[in-house]
């Protein structure tokens, strides 16, 4: 079965410090990986994706993520956190060319304190 795990329900970081939000996946086939952010009372916004090519992908708002095939991970990172980054972050995976089926992680709440 396909699945996505976000092992941390919540991540706390001080403003200006680097942040990491973890994601691991389990799929049969080539994974396409995505990160989304959800602000309170809003829908999900796309941050970045890995389809193929360079393992380090850069996305919106200074976020980046690294695809690690051996560790089946796709951790979200940012060198310097902002208070405005506080939100709920979802990792998602879809299989190969079948973009119709997305599997979402349970979400990680990021708290950035001033």
């Amino acid at each position, binding site marked *: 079965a396909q699945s996505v795990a976000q092992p941390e329900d919540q991540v706390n970081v001080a403003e200006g410090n680097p942040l990491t939000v973890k994601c691991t996946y389990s799929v049969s086939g080539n994974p396409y990986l*995505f990160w989304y952010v959800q602000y309170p009372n*809003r*829908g*999900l916004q*796309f941050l970045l*994706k890995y389809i193929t090519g360079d393992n380090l992908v850069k996305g919106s708002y200074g976020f980046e993520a690294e695809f690690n095939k051996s560790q089946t991970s796709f951790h979200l990172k940012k060198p310097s956190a902002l208070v405005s980054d506080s939100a709920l972050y979802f990792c*998602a995976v879809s299989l190969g060319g079948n*973009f*119709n089926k*997305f599997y979402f992680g349970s979400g990680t709440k990021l708290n950035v304190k001033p």
Partner: protein
Amino acid sequence: SAVISQKPSRDICQRGTSLTIQCQVDSQVTMMFWYRQQPGQSLTLIATANQGSEATYESGFVIDKFPISRPNLTFSTLTVSNMSPEDSSIYLCSVRTRDTGELFFGEGSRLTVL
């Protein structure tokens, strides 16, 4: 990208009633989906809305409870029928455009059933 408008944005409903959520996209899209996000939880795919034919439902979701229409490539509706408090959730419309892999989401419709 695609701009997705959902309405209502929120509603409070009585047990036993039904509510229809509308989703309008600003461009013709290949795939439209309906997701549910229960309080504090991740996203669960309800169904794929197929243009001109019956929706494709995921395990655990049935047409009698969640009838879906998609009369054209830019519009879909989801009805939550005979509501109970367990149906209190955010319902999200999502689309995938022809040339990208990521999903785009509407702002969501937050339903509270009393």
